[in-house]
């Protein structure tokens, strides 16, 4: 095995990967659908270590065996089952999934926007579209990855609610709340959850090298900040070896965030 360079002991991208991986701790045998390089690495790290029963897709139409490096060519993947889109919806609606989507905007109540910036009928900026976010967020655990935490991404109110947050789910009734579970938000600055009495966003941990004030300054709304909030945990030496020599020796992880 290649010798591991422990300097630095943990980069920002690696903190983000650990934070993503932790979202799937104790998840059991469920399908993980990570969007982006860092959530993909988090899922592979979790599957390789503390969450071996996770089910990963190949990003196309199959489930893949193991947790291969992120740069693995499609022809080299070993697949275990077919997972065409039609079957994906069977999984979504059965609840056996915890997705981590990206968010162009996210707000205090956990609403996510990937549809449009501005008025939807005449958008200032057209984004990709709501995709599966409305259905995902009311059917199974849903987390978000935001690689650029700023006051433009962490906003008071998103422009078009694609993924449904807590207050909106509650207002929509039991059909929406029954399986609704916006679990985590991981950004390049920290980790957030909604474990507050009114299910608004709370700082769960700040990444090493980030000050809580930096997070407050990059967020447009008031975050709940527990007095005893901790730093995002460091990777173990085994996790670092796995990340740096096996899962991502080409450091694709560093391309997704500004450090």
């Amino acid at each position, binding site marked *: 095995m290649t010798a591991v360079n422990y300097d630095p002991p943990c980069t920002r991208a690696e903190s983000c990967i650990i934070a993503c991986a932790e979202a799937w701790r104790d998840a059991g045998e469920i399908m993980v659908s990570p969007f982006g390089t860092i959530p993909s690495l988090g899922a592979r790290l979790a599957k390789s270590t503390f969450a071996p029963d996770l089910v990963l897709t190949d990003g*196309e*139409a*199959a489930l893949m065996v193991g947790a291969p490096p992120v740069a693995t060519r499609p022809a080299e993947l070993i697949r275990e089952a*077919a997972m*065409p*889109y*039609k079957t994906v*919806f069977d999984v*979504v*609606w059965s609840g056996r999934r915890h997705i981590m989507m990206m968010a162009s905007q996210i707000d205090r109540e956990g609403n996510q926007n990937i*549809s*449009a910036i501005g008025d*939807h*009928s*005449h*958008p*200032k*900026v*057209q*984004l*990709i*579209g*709501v*995709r*599966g*976010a*409305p*259905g995902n*967020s*009311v*059917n199974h655990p849903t987390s978000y990855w935001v690689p650029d935490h700023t006051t433009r991404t962490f906003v008071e109110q998103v422009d*078009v*609610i*694609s*993924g*449904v947050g807590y207050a*909106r*789910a509650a*207002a*929509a*009734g*039991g*059909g*929406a709340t*029954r*399986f*609704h579970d916006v679990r985590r938000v991981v950004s390049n600055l920290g980790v957030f959850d909604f474990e507050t009495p009114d299910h608004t966003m709370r700082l769960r941990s700040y990444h090493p090298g980030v000050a809580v004030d930096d997070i407050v300054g990059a967020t447009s709304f008031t975050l709940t900040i527990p007095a005893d909030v901790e730093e995002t945990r460091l990777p173990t030496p085994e996790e670092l070896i796995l990340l740096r020599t096996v899962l991502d020796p080409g450091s694709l992880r560093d391309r997704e965030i500004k450090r």
Partner: protein
Amino acid sequence: MSDKRTTVDAIIGELRSGMTIGIGGWGSRRKPMAIVRALCRSDLHDLTLVAYGGPDVGLLCAAGKVKKVVCSFVTLDSIALDPHWRSARQRGQVEVMEVDEGMLYQGLQAAAWRVPFLPTRAGLGSDVLTINPDLRLVRSPYGADSPFVHDPADADVELVAMPALHLDAALVHTNRADTAGNGQILGPDAFFDPLFLGAADRRFLSTERVVDNGRLTDEGPLSAVVIHRLLTDGVVETPRGAHFTANPPDYGRDESLQKEYAAAAGDPAQWDAFASRYVHVSDDEYRAHVEERSAT
């Protein structure tokens, strides 16, 4: 048995302005691009498209053929956003009925099953319901005293009633098809193509190669023949007919031409140059231009 072979021109001839047309595939994957280009060249206008949107939507918007799009996204996969779609939306040129991906599936399924709607949680609480004020909710008729209620939380529950998305016509591209109109998909995902066909009045397949009835098992398993002839009215052989979108195992996405397509957005002169070389040409010329391009 009738021979369903036809031509792209004959298919276009069966379509009318103002129609609602479903297009198979997903994003920039296995789109019936030869027929889409012919639509761009036609005098049809004010079309409503229903699609898991990719460059089919972008091209038709750029060609000014589209009044409305029913979709969940428009993406080129390797390029996240189709800039032609973005530009059409930001200029207010097209209307959109934007719904969750699963809602689109259920709308097609409802039409294919001839029921007016199917219930779903998808959409509840989201702005899908506010930006589409015509969408309605439905309350389960099964209350707490019903013998069918497995979980009390399901009693009287309110869900989205996704309406049937009826299509005037559906266009789908397959790897192989036979003369009778059976279609075979050799790639990893059939997407929702059988449902697009099932939801439509007039159903057309384009395909890489048409073979004799009964010969589809020569190249792939019978289980890949997911489109049976009860779902089709016409089939046309269009070699490389999904190009530049991905159509494995016949060919992958032509990333280079897709980039050129994307770069032509927003600049009328660049679009004209692209369209004159890759849209306003016959299929033979298109293939020749693609070959010339990859040779240089």
